[in-house]
């Protein structure tokens, strides 16, 4: 047992720090620090810089373009990225479909899609949820019927994040309705420009457009766009969901939020004194900090187990549950720190059309948008209640 960093680790930390200080564009950093979504252009620009450095996909095997970092190096990099408010790659390509392709895809699919993901040529989105299939994902109804070398896809996906920006969607579709739900699902990669696909925006409670409905009407998808075997898609889907939990604790970002709260608390006033001297407020912040420390060391402990070849079952669900609870407590406290200036709020497209400055303090722009958006954190990726079901079954055997 040992918590210390080697000389090489410290040199690596300096390298990451130096890279972020010189290469992270100010506009990308500022939006991320405030808790705003990156613009499509900004995100792609930054991902290309990351790819040029070879750091876009730290979790991929080296042969496909991964970094080959040790567990400790990954931890250090995540920490430095969070501290510097540097976004990581969007998950849909790098963290979700990428590993499915290099694990279950054929050579042609690997050769074509993986470099395009690394180079940000395709913006991916995730076609999982349907209006009738949320937590009960295996009940999905979108149908794919074989017609020669194509499937014909009909149905609807929902809650599709950034589908409006997407070039590609990976989709779970039903290819056999006569068998058990889980045994009739296939995994398709679909070009968003294919005739018959319609994207309709869903405006969120943050008044922003990040979610969508995606409709499929007689959409022709080449059979060669299927991953693995027909009707084996549930296996690949579960593999993807397992990977989705990697990094979902978002410890480094939450640490950055703690730093922001300390800064704001020095400026805001309560009872004629700095908010940083208000014991009720600081008590909440301290308790979050301690819970965050427990989360951080739990993630490290699990990483250490994995790097020693131990298989985890549902332990990462703990990281999802606790990590998202902490994210929400932090953004809630950020909003609280603003006092009455938590209330003024406009969607970004309205805000950008104005000539006046932000109402209230500059740091007041962002926290509410993130607070509202992150209410989804305990819902997406398998709701926290579903995560509890998973732990109950897999770990406790109940």
């Amino acid at each position, binding site marked *: *047992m*040992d*918590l*210390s*960093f080697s000389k090489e*680790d410290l040199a690596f930390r300096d390298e990451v720090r130096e890279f972020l200080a010189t290469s992270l564009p100010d506009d990308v950093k500022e939006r991320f620090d405030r808790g705003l979504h990156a613009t499509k252009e900004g995100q792609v620009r930054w991902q290309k810089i990351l790819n040029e450095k070879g750091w876009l996909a730290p979790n991929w095997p080296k042969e496909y373009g991964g970094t080959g970092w040790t*567990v*400790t190096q990954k*931890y250090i990099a995540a920490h430095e990225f969070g501290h510097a408010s540097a976004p990581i790659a969007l998950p849909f390509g790098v963290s979700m479909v990428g590993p499915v392709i290099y694990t279950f895809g054929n050579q042609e699919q690997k050769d074509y899609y993986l470099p395009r993901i690394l180079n940000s040529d395709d913006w991916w989105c995730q076609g999982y949820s349907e209006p009738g299939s949320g937590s009960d994902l295996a009940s999905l109804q979108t149908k794919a019927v074989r017609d020669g070398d194509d499937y014909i896809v009909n149905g609807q996906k929902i809650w599709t994040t950034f589908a409006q920006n997407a070039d590609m969607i990976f989709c779970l579709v039903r290819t056999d309705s006569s068998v058990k739900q889980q045994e009739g699902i296939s995994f398709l990669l679909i070009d968003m420009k294919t005739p018959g696909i319609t994207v309709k925006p869903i405006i969120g409670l943050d008044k922003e457009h990040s979610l969508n409905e995606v409709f499929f009407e007689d959409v022709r998808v080449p059979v060669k766009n299927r991953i693995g075997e027909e009707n084996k898609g549930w296996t690949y889907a579960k593999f993807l969901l397992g990977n989705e939990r990697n990094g979902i604790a978002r410890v480094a970002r939450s640490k950055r939020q703690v730093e922001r709260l300390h800064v704001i608390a020095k400026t805001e006033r309560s009872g004629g004194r700095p908010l940083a001297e208000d014991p009720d407020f*600081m*008590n909440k912040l*301290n*308790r979050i*900090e*301690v*819970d965050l*420390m*427990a*989360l951080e*060391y*739990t993630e*490290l*402990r699990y990483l*250490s*187990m994995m790097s*020693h070849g131990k298989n985890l079952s549902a*332990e990462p669900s*703990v990281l999802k*549950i*606790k990590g998202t609870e902490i994210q929400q407590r932090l953004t809630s406290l950020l909003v609280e720190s603003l006092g009455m200036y938590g209330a003024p709020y406009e969607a970004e497209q309205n805000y950008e059309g104005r000539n006046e400055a932000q109402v209230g303090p500059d740091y007041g722009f962002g926290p509410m948008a993130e607070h509202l958006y992150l209410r989804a954190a305990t819902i997406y990726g398998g709701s926290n*209640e579903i995560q*509890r*079901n998973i*732990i*109950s079954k897999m*770990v*406790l*055997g*109940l």
Partner: protein
Amino acid sequence: MDFELSDEQNLLKDSVERFVKDNYSAEARAKLSETETGFSRNHWKKMAELGWLGLPFSEEVGGFGGTAVETMIMMESMGRGLVLEPFLTTVVMGGGLVAEAGNDTQIEAIIPAVIEGELMLAFAYAEPQSRFDLNDVETTAKKSGDGYVLNGHKSVVYHATTADKIIVSARTGGSSRDEDGISLFIVDNNTAGLSRRDYRTIDGQRAADVTLDNVKVGSDALLGSEGKAYPVIEKIVDRAIAALCAEAVGAMQAAIEITNGYLKERKQFGAPIGKFQVLQHRMVDMYMEAEQSKSMSDMVAMKLGLDDVQDRRRSVAAAKAKIGQGAKFVGEQAVQLHGGMGMTDEYSIGHYFKRLMTIEMLLGNTDYHFKRYAALA
């Protein structure tokens, strides 16, 4: 960065777990805690033979050179069986203070005897008004001739009854809450003027309130430099807190296993009650507390070996606060999920609940350590 145990450490863990399995069934523990001393001197002898009592001491003082990680391993495994022997008070606290601050004569007189299992120690640091503040010392030690005269009242001294020597914190200078001016004295339990009120504690152990009424000790009783004991006390108490955290982890894990087993057996409404989602989710919340507590306990055991004092204090405070909260939650919910069975003295779960509750309060409760954490920012 590595959380895995070495082969040797795994052997130690197996060995302590075997001891607990062989000697600490719920019935055996209940019986033992009802005896006069509340623990077994035979067990203590066995622990000495196995080398456990010498493991935390450095080789310079005759120990076997273990670290806080070995202490963590032993305490965690002992926590699983709610072991009653005074390892924490004699070895970690008493022995720790002597090894840290003692002169050669004191070390030679005490440490080998502790390692052999022939000498027991207790540490009297708390007072009625001090609550959890180690610096709040009103007991006085006045220079008199070649020695000192001690007067004061020490609270809830665990295992004072069976200790051969009690290490007492007393003020040789400064005012009642100063960190400066505190000294440590090694006092024989049978010294004239020392009286005890012995009692049982809710966790099945023994403690005493100790009154010092003109207790005369020689200058050789002074442990460390006069007036400079505070940093030593804080350091050893931090180690003891880490050990207590590990014990809590073991006790939480065992309480969860027992409760989980009960949920699979107990049937109501025609099904094992573990099939009900509301109980499943409660069990998961308990499991998550234990997982996080394990991470904090491992973290703090490793941090004790590093040199950064401020980081050590903050990490210990955070760990005790987090684990104290988790311990209370797991203990209370374990009783709740057992229904009426959880309320009985005969069934084991109540004993886990009670020890977890005392662990939360010993050496500073959750609120205290959150405040300490904040003050160290």
